[in-house]
């Protein structure tokens, strides 16, 4: 799957299937600090992401980057 991270913008390729929770753990990202968006839809931690998904991990902390 394509994973887009913001602030600074960069893109990663990650192999699926993988749950949102495990994706965040693998990238060492605190789930309280981000939204995970698949296409244009918010997804919860238990959703399993597939190889052909396009994912945005959007930081929500105002005041800097993660």
């Amino acid at each position: 799957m394509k994973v887009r991270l913001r602030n600074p913008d960069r893109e990663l390729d990650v192999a699926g299937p993988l749950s949102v929770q495990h994706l965040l753990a693998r990238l060492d990202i605190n789930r309280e600090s981000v939204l995970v968006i698949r296409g244009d839809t918010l997804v919860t931690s238990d959703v399993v992401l597939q190889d052909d998904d396009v994912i945005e991990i959007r930081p929500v902390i105002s005041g800097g980057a993660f």
Partner: protein
Amino acid sequence: MCRQPAVIDIRRHNAGFCGEHFLRLCRDQVTKAIEEFSMIGPGERVLVAVSGGKDSLAAWDLLSSLGYEADGLYLGLGIGDYSDTSGDHARRFAASRDLRLIEVDLRERYGFDIPTGSRAARRVPCSACGLAKRHVFDRVAVEGGYDVVATGHNLDDEAAVLFGNVLRWQVDYLARQLPVLPERDGFPRKVKPLVRLTEREMAAYCVLRGIDYIVEECPMSAGNKHLGYKEALNAIEQQSPGSKHDFYFGFLARASERFRAGIEADQAALRPCSACGAPTVTEVCAFCRLVERVTGERAGGSVPVELSAGSGVRPS
């Protein structure tokens, strides 16, 4: 039992919410905050401090959708592309909702922007920015006849500031760290309707409501210590959901009253700034001293404003 798919899981509520129920939760939490702390009375006019970011646009959207008469105020800070982009987000939001946006440009009105102003005054940018925002928001609210200024401070903001103030036992700041600061002579009431909602929830609210906010952070906020406090609190929250809420609301319920004794003395000492007339405890207020230091001239007079969006514009 809702059968729609969940779009957000909120661990402090131990629940997942579909889009419709999550939006209802946000509206209910704002209503509860407004009522619990007597933020806005019936028929009162609200001026929302708008930055183009998720929190201020969500606050404006929530207050408007709850039926409050809420106009926005955007302050142009002159921070390069960041200000251009954030201003565009604020204008587009106002136009899309047919809301009234008032604009004040710091450089045009006072002769400096935040990058040059903070350098010249040897203040960190966030300090100069906060000082300018407080001054202009107060001024426009008073001159425009608004009853209350609403800001987009959320639970994470308040918990992080509280954390920093407790770390250093900043007693004066603790006395003022409330969801409502009452109006005083020359100061409008200040309210924080989002205090019961986290910034993750506000970002989700914007996504679900189609609010196009600026995701990029202010380039001058790098190194802002509140970011570190937020990360520390989120690490605790991940281990112990609800900690941020308990920390902040526990302070309000059990400790905030103990720090208020000094406020009355400060209020008694307030007098009009000799340059601009705003209330201050010194002869010249901190903002006018900043302007004088940066430009060599004293600020003063009323704040000219520009109306930039919304067909519902009323004469001031």
